[in-house]
């Protein structure tokens, strides 16, 4: 690395962090991309299709993952978290913690022999806990870096490491590349960076506290992200729409909007993306089954993005999706575990019920707890909803000079918006650094 090369740290390897990394890497900056999971990709990697084009999500993301991985100026730090930060002139010193992977990243070829032998089954977080994986695993099939990781808390060998007799260790025995390294430990290291971008993303609201919807109580009531994994070909049911109560295939699905959003008791804001992603779900459901009947229950239909109104028209005209204005008051079930929705139809002002085979709750996008912790470490101010606070005249700046933000840590937003302000944050970083250098370009 040239000693004049400037360093940028990007925290979060979702689509926003990836886009910032690629832009800055192309500009000639050295980028340290920090990702707490074993692989980059973020939420977009979990999605089946993207709207309004219904492009396969991972198919358009995968080239970006590879670009990031092979970019000469981008270094991916997986399983890594920010611990501490201090000022260093106009830049920063950042102390990082890299969790042990117990797999050597340079030798693992992701052949999967170890996975076959591993006896420990663990709920797969990437698949929204809808299936089990092994204690040694690849985070997701197309994940980058494409190497295994061992979940320390679940690994038989590591749990019994201090016992006299060796327990398990089959993965190590079977690995032809000597990639398993049980001696790895968590490590601390410090990096210097001239600017930072926070791209720590968002979570899905857990609707369990909204007990009237019966999530977790009724098996046939699931969340939007769970459904996303379900309809994904690489997901837990290999793309088959399956009721969790009896493994049958529903013919009638209800999509409930504003679950945990536009609700002063949970999150008072609008989550922005749900009206259109439920429309996508309804369209895809019909593509999976020609006879599928979908109904979307909403308060206001919010579809302002490019091509979104057309998408909704397509859903109505070509896919027979029904839109009903009305907030669901309660969900009950019948003796066959069919959900029954109770609601007021706001077009006719009548109280009605509707029985369906399956219910998908369009849950709010919420800030991640880790974003909150990270903001605290960085000294970044949050808004009243715990998203990173920005202002209308500087939409990607934080309160700390030299620290910028992009993607859904700034608030609920879709992929194009995340990509736009990811590039925007990259521009502001470059401006920050070059002005510092004197801004001379001949």
């Amino acid at each position: 690395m040239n000693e004049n090369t400037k360093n940028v740290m990007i925290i979060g390897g979702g689509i926003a962090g990836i886009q910032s990394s690629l832009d800055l890497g192309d500009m000639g900056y050295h980028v340290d991309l920090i990702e707490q999971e074993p692989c980059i990709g973020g939420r977009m990697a979990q999605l089946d299709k993207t709207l309004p084009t219904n492009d396969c999500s991972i198919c358009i993301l995968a080239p970006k993952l590879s670009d990031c991985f092979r970019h000469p100026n981008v270094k991916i730090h997986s399983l890594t978290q920010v611990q501490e930060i201090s000022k260093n002139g106009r830049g920063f010193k950042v102390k990082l913690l890299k969790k042990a992977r117990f797999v050597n990243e340079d030798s693992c070829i992701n052949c999967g022999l170890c996975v076959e032998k591993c006896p420990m089954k663990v709920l797969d977080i990437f698949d929204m806990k809808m299936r089990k994986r092994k204690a040694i695993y690849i985070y997701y099939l197309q994940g980058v870096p494409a190497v295994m990781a061992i979940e320390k808390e679940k690994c038989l060998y590591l749990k019994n490491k201090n016992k006299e007799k060796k327990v398990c260790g089959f993965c190590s025995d079977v690995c032809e590349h000597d990639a398993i390294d049980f001696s790895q430990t968590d490590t601390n290291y410090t990096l210097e960076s001239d600017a930072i971008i926070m791209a720590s993303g968002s979570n899905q609201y857990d609707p369990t506290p909204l007990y009237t919807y019966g999530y977790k109580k009724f098996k046939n009531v699931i969340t939007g992200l769970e459904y996303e994994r379900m309809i994904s070909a690489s997901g837990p049911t290999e793309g088959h729409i399956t009721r969790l109560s009896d493994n049958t295939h529903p013919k009638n699905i209800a999509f409930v909007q504003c679950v945990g959003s536009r609700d002063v008791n949970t999150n008072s804001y609008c989550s922005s993306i749900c009206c259109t992603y439920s429309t996508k779900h309804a369209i895809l459901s019909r593509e999976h089954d020609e006879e599928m009947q979908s109904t979307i229950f909403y308060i206001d239909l919010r579809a302002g993005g490019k091509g979104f109104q057309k998408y909704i028209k397509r859903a109505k005209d070509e896919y027979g999706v029904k839109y009903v204005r009305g907030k669901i008051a309660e969900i009950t079930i019948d003796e066959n575990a069919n959900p029954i929705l109770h609601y007021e139809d706001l077009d006719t002002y009548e109280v009605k019920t509707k029985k369906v085979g399956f219910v998908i709750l369009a849950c709010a996008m919420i800030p991640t707890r880790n974003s909150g912790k990270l903001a605290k470490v960085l000294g970044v101010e949050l808004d009243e909803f715990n998203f990173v606070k920005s202002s209308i005249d500087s939409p990607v700046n934080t309160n700390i000079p030299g620290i910028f933000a992009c993607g859904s840590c700034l608030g609920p937003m879709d992929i194009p918006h995340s990509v736009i302000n990811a590039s925007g944050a990259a521009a502001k970083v470059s401006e920050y650094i070059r002005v510092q250098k004197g801004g001379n370009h001949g």
Partner: protein
Amino acid sequence: MDEIRIGVFVCHCGTNIAGFVDVASIEEYVKTLPHVVFTQRNLYTCSETGLLAIKNGIKENNLNRVIVAACTPRTHEPLFRGICSEMGLNPYFFEFVNIREQCSWVHQKEKEKATSKARDLVRMGVARAALLEPLEKFQIDVEPSTLIIGGGISGMSAASVLANQGFHVIIVEKDTELGGQLRNLHRLYPGDMDSQKMLSIREEILKNPKIEVHISSKIKNIDGYIGNFDITVLKGEKEIKFGVGTIIVATGTDVLKPKGLYNYDGKKVITQKELELLFKENQFNSKNIVMIQCVGSRNEERPYCSSICCMTAMKNARVIKEKNPDAEVFILNRDIYTSGTYQEEFYREARKMGVIFTRYNESKLPQVTEDSVIYYNESLKEDVEIKYDLVVLSTPLVTYHEESKKLSKMLKVPLDEFGFFLEAHVKLRPVDFSNDGIFVCGTCKWPANVPESISQGYAAASRVTRIISKDTFTVEGATAWIDQEKCIACEICLKKCPYKAITRDEEDRVIVRTVLCKCCGVCSTTCPEHAIDIRHYKDNQVESQITALLEEGEWIE
């Protein structure tokens, strides 16, 4: 010539392909084809695991041609070509066969036909691969400067970021001053920032020695290519010519004038924009105000949602309520669009302040009479009459259609059905055009509010910086090539080329300016002397595919 050794990688794409095409049989079939020395199936060829498999395949089998039978070159060709380069193989020895879009996706209900078509396509790919020739990409110099067309908030944001980094920026603005639509606004939501405060960026722009501003100016002509565009600007009568490396389109939008709608007269029935002007000039004194949303949008003619009008109406309703809490403000709407965090809060506050939101149905539009608005209230199931002294119509942002059309022709970039500029990829390349070196931001590509327009300006600046922070840019090696022995200089190709890539050189020969060539093939097909070859799509390469298809193909009705 070395022995031709073709490796074919058949992708499952999860179940995207494997769910409908019998990929195992494809692999078996490929093995029987000439020159194929290696085949493999991968769950996802584009994953790092799949890429490693290609690398090992090349290394272990001495492959000199690589075929991936998978998805679309639009998203994945650069990746696979890059892998070939990494392994020391000329990237033009890579051949893509699309068995997803062209087979599994379009023939989901006819698996046998999907498989048989995939067999045909792969056989054609193998035939072509054997005849591929190595090509070199080449480097062109890049002028480290940018032309920004349009001096609204988006264009100015881009200009400021670029100039602060030391790059030369030229803004061309058709109006007599910078500022765009921001000049017409009174306050900005949320926080009620005065739009004048944000407009102060204009002074920064004008003071910045790196930024050159041409007001009252129009683009007359654009020539050239990434790194070296030649621009002609018409400033009044005067023509100004200069060169730039990149271009940002930030031409903005107009607000629809609702002529003929709801008795619009600009006095008692006005638009939101006109209302803000009344505020600015302290001319506002109405007490009974009815606002109507979606006027001229979300209808047959303009089926899009302009996304900013609900917030604009609320912002102005709040101003009215602050001035006079006793004023009655109704907002007749179809769906309230306040998506995002602070927007919903803004809506809640407006309701608290006493603004009345009531819904109308698109099948029964409200009627504006001399002194009242009549609309059908669905909960009461009857017509309701509201007396007014001012009706405010919320009209959408609409494109400067004629100007956009001209500009799109000059830049050779597309517009959508409404006249908005069409970006390269709605999801992942939201401020790029597919033409290299040209970018887009702000409302000329879709309705956006102020912070979104600023972000887009920054984003365009980032995409520009990637290019102009380097001295050179690498361009595609696959281009047209004219055989001077055969050329009779009839100039048919020169006239037909949609990219103006064919020209006369100093020796008066007809030649291809390779940097401009997009390899579309128009010249080659129109040449009466067969003097033009399209490199990478040479006649023998294409013919080999056709022959391969006809040799064994089964005709599918």
